């Protein structure tokens, strides 16, 4: 297949008159892990929401394997193979952990594999297995994060969008989650994630993109970024 799997071209988008993304372009090659870093409030989450269809574009296009997905409804974007694990988790509060996970495999293709996927997610996140019948609204912050990520892993995704997967997680769990992410990438999935802490992704991401005030100001490989501390210092400090 020629060209990147996910192509974002000169995209402008925002909320109610505020422009958040300005003329933004990004190409993500299949089977790679791309990380977006940058100051808070500058559009990282908005970009993921624009890809998954929750935020409409005022200009530009987003294509998956050459097919435009920016005018599709969010559920159609999911059906096309783009799974978004949002930052606020957005769990179903009155459903249990396992019911939430099962909702991740709502579409028929994934539903057929449900038992196997559930086992995989529970093996990966044993805490969720422990709490499988607990109602989501009673979970702790980190447990909700885990459930949200687990739910995202239940679906068949060609592209997985992860919004700050490490937020609120204990250090040991962060390492485990990133191990999973790298394993997923190695098995062929394409992953686009947003991360607050550049050093966490520097040695794992194939490409890192620095988003500032709605546009990308720097793109490159991890080692390059760590060799240029002044870039990080300017935008992120430390």
């Amino acid at each position: 297949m020629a060209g990147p799997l996910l192509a974002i071209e000169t995209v402008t988008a925002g909320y109610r008159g505020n422009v958040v993304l300005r003329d933004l372009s990004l190409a993500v090659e299949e089977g790679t892990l791309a990380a977006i870093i940058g100051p808070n409030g500058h559009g990282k989450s908005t970009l993921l929401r624009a890809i998954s269809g929750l935020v409409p574009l005022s200009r530009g296009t987003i294509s998956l394997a050459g097919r435009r997905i920016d005018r599709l409804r969010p559920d159609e974007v999911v059906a096309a193979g783009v799974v978004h694990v949002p930052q606020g988790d957005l769990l179903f509060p009155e459903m249990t952990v396992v019911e939430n996970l099962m909702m991740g495999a709502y579409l028929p293709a994934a539903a057929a594999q449900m038992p196997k996927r559930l086992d995989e997610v529970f093996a990966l996140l044993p805490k969720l297995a422990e709490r499988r019948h607990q109602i989501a609204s009673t979970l702790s912050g980190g447990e909700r994060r885990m459930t949200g990520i687990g739910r995202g892993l239940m679906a068949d995704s060609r592209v997985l969008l992860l919004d700050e997967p490490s937020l609120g997680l204990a250090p040991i769990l962060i390492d485990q989650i990133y191990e999973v992410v790298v394993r997923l990438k190695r098995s062929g999935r394409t992953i686009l994630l947003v991360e607050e802490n550049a050093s966490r992704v520097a040695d794992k991401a194939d490409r890192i993109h620095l988003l500032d005030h709605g546009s990308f100001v720097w793109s490159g490989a991890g080692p390059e970024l760590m060799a240029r501390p002044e870039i990080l210092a300017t935008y992120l400090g430390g």
Partner: protein
Amino acid sequence: MAAPPPVAPHRRGLVPEQSSHAGGGAILSVRGVSKHFGALAAVDDLSFEVMPGEVLGIGGPNGAGKTTLFEVISGLSPATRGAILFDGRDITQASPEAICHAGIARTFQLNAGFDSMSLADNVRVAAYFGRAHRSWPGVKVGADTDAVVAEALAAVGLADRAHLLTGSVPVLDRKLAMLAGAIATKPKLLLLDEPVGGLNPKEIDHVMGVVRTIAARGITIILIEHIMRFLVELSTRVLIMHHGEKIYEGKPKGLVSDRTVIDVYLGEGASERLGALMAARERA
């Protein structure tokens, strides 16, 4: 600096210390506290003390009971067993308002703020209702409250942006407003629940500076955080919880050599990085 406001006569639920044991001067004494939800013990027979002026850092795996502990101390979710003494007084079953007026303030993991109001107004609400019991809220907030508000905003660095609407500002400012609201209640003890989650290193540094300023005023602080840099650099002492119990209590540097802590909380990678970080700071 102004002295803390005098104790109002009508504070419900605060029982003066009955026993002769004075608690050794601890400002907060948690004794055998348990919190059960049905059969599940979210906090299990936990005991520890906090001395005035300390910064106690609490860490632990997700679901260990850390936020539940804060809910028990601040009165939102009373303990099922055990006792909590604050400044010598039993607050175990006191109402959240009484505990706030007694001098304990708290911030939350999620950005709790009134979105349609300005940052300054959010802090005003805290300053007005949080410092003293108001049986009849007045029409005007009053000059002394305004002074407290201005001071709190300046302490966190929000003075120039205070007029902006809370719903429209970046997450750092919302967290700072929450912190300003907490200190505007003139607390003696401040409970901070994951104050820097989601912030980048520059923003974390800023919040660390603010917390140091607050601690310098003599306010005792207990903080929950997973961002280890924040936890170890600010805390004078660290407590790690797991399944509602204490598995470590001691100096921050001991964390990286405690086997249990590494196995259940830090993991090998993070503990190595943390060890290196602490060693570097010590050399500096």
